[in-house]
């Protein structure tokens, strides 16, 4: 029982990332009809927003310490971050420590701009082209983006720790009546799950309770009629692309302390997120979220030693296996609507 609960918890944070990426993918597909294979790259850029802010906050003044030597035997250069010089030791260190949460504020405008530029500069030219063309161009764009990131940041993972207050783990098992050390869970993963839940709720609320969201939903249902009413639906859909990019970016920012960001992390999530979208049902926001959490949890279960012993290799194929079963039973996915991606 404790092992099952443990894997459900593990699946929640992985599922949170899948759900957030798949949510953005579905938003873009639902509004613009574009299959965006560059969405994983947006997740990766978000993570590198955290890395960038961490580097900005640790920009340092260099002084020479004559009493110490570097690896070549020369007087050692000592770097002191400007924030420490400006705000003092404790405040400066605290600002650096909180680089990842602060990066949320940094990433929102950056990702909105990246999203809008991507849509206006490239993707809008492919609206009327077949899905295969859209996939090719967005996949190519993803490769270009990750190579740019590699050129600036290198190929190795870059440690981007959570604030000191959220490092480490707590004994979740004791809280629910199990023996000590039965279910240990890291604080930051709990924060990630809560953050994902808030973002998902905010996106749904935005679409449901704002006029802008209502128009977007109407446009998703019948773009032509909304256009005939004199509403510039294209501009709103461009804004939605920006919002989808920001959602993926924020998912990336908060994921940075879980796994040190590297330039190909977007590709690692992209394929699985597409499977999530298809299992959830193309164009269904709720389906994307549901399938994200479902597949995240199933992936965790499949990694249990007992399960691998029973069916070797199941951890590598579980998501695709479930996708096949779901699509055989429900060809439109769990919550897919009739007419979406159907001729």
């Amino acid at each position, binding site marked *: 029982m404790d092992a099952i609960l443990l894997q459900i918890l593990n699946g929640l944070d992985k599922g949170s990332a899948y759900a957030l990426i798949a949510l953005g993918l579905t938003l873009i597909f639902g509004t613009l009809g574009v299959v965006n294979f560059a969405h994983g790259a947006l997740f990766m850029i978000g993570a590198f927003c955290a890395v960038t802010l961490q580097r900005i906050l640790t920009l340092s003044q260099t002084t020479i310490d004559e009493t110490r030597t570097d690896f070549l035997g020369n007087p050692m250069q000592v770097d002191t971050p400007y924030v420490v010089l400006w705000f003092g030791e404790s405040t400066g260190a605290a600002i650096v420590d909180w680089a990842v949460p602060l990066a949320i504020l940094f990433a929102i405008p950056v990702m909105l701009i990246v999203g809008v530029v991507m849509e206006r500069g490239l993707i809008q030219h492919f609206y009327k082209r077949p899905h295969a063309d859209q996939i090719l161009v967005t996949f190519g764009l993803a490769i270009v983006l990750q190579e740019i990131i590699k050129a600036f940041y290198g190929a*190795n993972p870059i440690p981007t720790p959570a604030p000191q207050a959220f490092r*480490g*783990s707590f004994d979740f098992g004791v809280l629910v009546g199990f023996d000590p050390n039965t279910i240990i869970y890291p604080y*930051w993963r709990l924060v990630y799950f809560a953050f994902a839940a808030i973002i998902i709720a905010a996106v749904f609320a935005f679409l449901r309770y704002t006029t802008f969201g209502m128009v977007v939903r109407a446009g998703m249902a019948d773009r032509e009629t909304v256009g005939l009413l004199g509403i510039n639906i294209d501009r709103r859909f461009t804004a939605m692309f920006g919002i989808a990019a920001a959602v993926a970016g924020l998912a990336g920012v908060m994921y940075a302390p879980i*796994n040190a960001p590297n330039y190909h992390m977007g590709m690692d999530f992209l394929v699985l997120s597409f499977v999530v979208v298809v299992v959830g049902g193309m164009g269904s926001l709720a389906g994307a979220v549901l399938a994200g959490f479902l597949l995240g949890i199933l992936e965790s279960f499949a990694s249990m030693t007992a399960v691998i012993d029973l069916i070797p290799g199941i*951890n590598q194929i579980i998501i695709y296996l479930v996708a096949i079963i779901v699509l055989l039973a429900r060809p439109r996915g769990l919550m897919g609507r009739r007419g979406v991606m159907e001729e």
Partner: protein
Amino acid sequence: MTKATFTRRGLLRTGAATGAGLAMPTIFTGASWAQGQGFTNAPTGDTVTLGFNVPQTGPYADEGADELRAFELAVEHLNGEGDGGMLQTFSEKNLDGTGIMGKRVAFVTGDTQTKSDAARASARSMIEKDGAIMISGGSSSGVAVAVQGLCQEAGVIFMSGLTHSNDTTGKDKKANGFRHFFNAYQSGAAMGPVLESLYGTDRRAYHLTADYTWGWTTQESMQAVTEDLGWETVNNVLTPLAATDFSSYIAPVLNSGADVLFLNHYGGNMVNSLTNAVQFGLKEAQANGKQFEIVVPLYSELMARGAGRNIAGIPGSQNWDWKLENELGSRYVGTNAFTQSFGTKYGFPPSQAAHTCYVQTLLYADAVQRAGSFNPCAVAEALEDFEFDGMGNGPTLYRGADHQCFKDVVVTRGKENPENEFDLVEIIEATPTEQVTYEPDHPMFAGGALGECNPGA
């Protein structure tokens, strides 16, 4: 209207000729075939070309970049440029800065992408199109085994870069291939006594192992050495090479009855699995009434940089470290010369991947010089059972029986309070060569044979 004139004899002759042509590897039919020289790519002008095959893209690109820096430095030194680096400390004095056998050294590079097929394709291109007479580099055992096989077929020498699997000089060893880097068995042999002194003889180990040749042999070696100490192996879980989040593998560890976790992972896998293990509180946890411990059998400075503070206090093993001579004395002479040379040119200390690639290039050049020929079989003979010193590892033997170098192994630990970004690991000890030496027919290395040297003729 024409009439076809097939005959049974004609058909058989044509078929046999076509079959033989198709069966012959294309590498033997290209321009690389040295007319009248008796071996592949015999240098005819006043230059000799070496091929450096490193990961320039993909997850090990940073390691590949460091290897390439070291190769460039070695070529500079061979051609008499720069400060000479380890040429000044190398026990053999055959290299005088005039290239190799009076020929200026040129080089071409290839991108392995850390994929066996891509690595073979780039090595093949360097041999066939660029006339490379020796191939070196690489940052993965899968790649090393694949390229070593290709070099054997092509008739050129392969001086491997960073490859740690037992198989490279075990079941997959080849007469044309030579490894300076240490291997998984030697990691285990070096770490055993250190693990005993750090954690005692009553421990229960849990292994997470990358699911490919390097992971398997590393796990096998560590399990053997720890069980000899009296430890019990609780479990060994194979993890996919493509895995990025190890939480579902890490989470059950604490509840498994184990009190030591071995992360038989390398590169990004190791950074992520270690980060996950620390997040799940394993470093602070207590199990079986003892402090829970994590062990990373193969260390790399670049990995340590990626893991950040998580690496503090965690033991592992290395082929070499840039602090060796300063901390353990003149036995490791050459270390400072190379670090000075590399650090002055690039602004940071060299990694162990850079070191092994630099040393391999000089060793090849010296072997050619001593053999008086570029013929790979003459070079192989010069390298076999060659004893040398002054390359930073102490006295070293290139054993003829399996083409594996035998030298001290460095046992390290992540530094608790690093003073700067390069000060990531501290040296616990350098395990003497005798302790990490094994018989060529040791079971962990069984199943293969060097075969005959192939000069390509």
